[in-house]
């Protein structure tokens, strides 16, 4: 019998799964599957809690928060409460009950395929694939879609019991690169349900106070705009799709919203100590997945992580479903007692929070990219044998909209505001508080060292370069 269920949440307060709402009831059933419960054991921010001890929240609470946000946004669309000045095409999906439920379920399940230590795990898998001469890895979006389609697992089974077409419909939303209609904006846009949750939750749980999200005002001032799906204006008839934008009344709040995201990137996600520990986690997973290494330290080949990492090609979704932070931490504890020097050092670093020494070339040289690159090359050559063992390199560029993979945001993820003169990307206003500097690429190159003498040698190269 259907019953109303309630969850208390530090960000959204009371999240109710209504007994009279069949999608809420399906969502509650999905939450109680083994695949979804696995998300309780995957921390949202990986090793960020080494720097921000409060940041122990999980993909589980985040996913429920995303469902809550998606339900609110879908209702705004269903009830036609979002202003659409030019009535841009909604691709025939206006007030579509089917589409509403697909999107709500997709929002709930959007992270179902995340692996342990998320980005460090995918980075290590990429490095292993390259070492094996493989050109690609299956990423978490692939595993999400596979778990959703899998008829022998609870999620796929419950979805198809609800509607046989639902698993495929939900999986396709997760696999899509581009928005297909305005409902898609709920799961992928500048104001999607995912971003609305993680910006608030990560800020709250890390304790950082920079930036703010004026959620209610932004929701009240949402509008729909048609945007091009390609970045370059070289097509006289560009492919367009409807997505969320804001009315001018919310421009200030929208600026704060974008800056809140940027501040989280610079102060939390790209924090130099966190990135150092992520490098160590990645190196350890890579070591475990390299041929013969697990056997050297007495870890059985049928351990789910080893089976997954050493499979011919990408590992199976069945093995993937057994992986979580606890599985990896169990191995880290074992490696911390190993007689093998390399994995023991990596594991002790994590177990004892013995942070590697950081040499931050970008902080030292500022914006002098020539100096950064010259010194980077010298250090890399000097420590080529030690890279990934006792020396770790982190590099890339970042800017206002970039993601953690260094990829610029797609068009439908830019924040736009409608004025009487037309629609503008938010940083294009003459009186914006968003600095020009934030739009330019900022380089970062950091080295991490276990050994002080290696750190000192690298530091000498850096200071001599000045």
């Amino acid at each position: 019998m259907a019953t109303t269920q309630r969850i208390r949440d530090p960000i959204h307060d009371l999240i109710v799964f209504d007994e009279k709402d069949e999608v809420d009831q399906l969502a509650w059933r999905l939450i109680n599957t083994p695949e979804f419960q696995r998300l309780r054991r995957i921390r949202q921010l990986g090793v960020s809690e080494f720097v921000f001890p409060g940041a122990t929240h999980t993909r589980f609470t985040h996913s429920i928060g995303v469902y809550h946000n998606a339900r609110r946004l879908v209702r705004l669309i269903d009830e036609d409460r979002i202003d659409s000045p030019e009535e841009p095409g909604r691709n025939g999906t206006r007030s579509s009950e089917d589409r509403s439920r697909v999107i709500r379920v997709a929002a709930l399940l959007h992270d179902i395929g995340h692996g342990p230590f998320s980005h460090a795990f995918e980075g290590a898998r990429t490095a292993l694939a390259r070492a094996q001469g493989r050109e690609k890895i299956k990423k978490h979006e692939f595993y999400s879609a596979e778990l959703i389609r899998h008829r022998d697992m609870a999620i796929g089974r419950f979805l198809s019991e609800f509607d046989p077409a639902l698993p495929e419909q939900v999986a396709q939303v997760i696999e899509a690169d581009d928005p297909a209609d305005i409902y898609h904006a709920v799961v992928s846009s500048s104001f999607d349900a995912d971003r609305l949750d993680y910006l608030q939750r990560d800020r709250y749980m890390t304790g950082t106070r920079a930036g703010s999200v004026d959620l209610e005002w932004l929701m009240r001032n949402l509008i729909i705009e048609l945007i091009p799906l390609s970045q370059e204006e070289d097509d006289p008839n560009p492919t367009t799709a409807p997505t969320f934008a804001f009315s001018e009344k919310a421009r200030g709040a929208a600026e704060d919203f974008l800056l809140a995201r940027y501040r989280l990137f610079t102060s939390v996600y790209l924090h130099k100590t966190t990135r150092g520990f992520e490098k160590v986690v990645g190196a350890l997973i890579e070591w475990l997945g390299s041929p013969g290494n697990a056997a050297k330290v007495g870890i059985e080949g049928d351990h789910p992580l080893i089976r997954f990492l050493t499979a011919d090609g990408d590992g199976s979704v069945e093995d993937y479903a057994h992986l979580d932070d606890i599985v990896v931490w169990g191995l880290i504890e074992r490696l911390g007692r190993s007689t093998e020097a390399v994995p023991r050092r990596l594991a002790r670093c994590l177990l004892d929070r013995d942070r590697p020494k950081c040499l931050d070339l970008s902080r030292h040289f500022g914006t002098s990219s020539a100096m950064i690159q010259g010194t980077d090359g010298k250090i890399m050559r000097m420590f080529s044998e030690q890279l990934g063992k006792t020396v770790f390199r982190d590099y890339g560029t970042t800017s206002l909209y970039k993601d953690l993979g260094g990829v610029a945001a797609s068009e439908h993820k830019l924040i736009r505001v409608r004025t009487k003169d037309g629609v503008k990307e938010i940083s294009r206003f003459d009186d914006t508080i968003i600095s020009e500097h934030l739009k330019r690429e900022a380089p970062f190159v950091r080295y991490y060292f276990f050994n002080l003498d290696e750190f000192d040698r690298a530091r000498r190269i850096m200071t001599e370069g000045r």
Partner: protein
Amino acid sequence: MTDPNEVLRQTFAAANGEIVGRIRLQKIAYLLQQKAGSSDLFFTYHHYGPFSRELSDALDWAVMRGDIEEMPRETGFGSTYSAFHWNGPQEEAGDVAGGPAAPETKAVVAKLKKQPSVILELAATIHWLRVKEQVDDWREQLKIRKKLKATDVNISRAEGVLGDLGLAGGA
């Protein structure tokens, strides 16, 4: 792995020093690599299709060094995109048959530069699905991933690009 700075230099050499847009640069580099096999940059799949993080970083660094000039332009939809001009060292990169600066390569790249970036995105993605992911029904998968872009007309144009490059057969 091939030095991404070298791939960047060679791609601009083949493009007579001018490329409009990051997507176009990425897709030209990907398609040239598949055609000529002269580099082995690591590409992964992102929302615009095959993407090389190393090439993207190399571009950003080259702009910061001043080897490449980035000229922002505004679209009618309120956002910006960039045109890139090579200002760096001008030595010819392997002016040999099939090389990046060889006349036949330049002719191929000149045609690619004229294509809308959506067509290049679709061409690179079709190749990726067929060859890298080995998806049997690549057309259906393309329509799932890029529903509004993957019209029959656009797919046909993208297949034409692959045909011109000798990549229509898949492998």
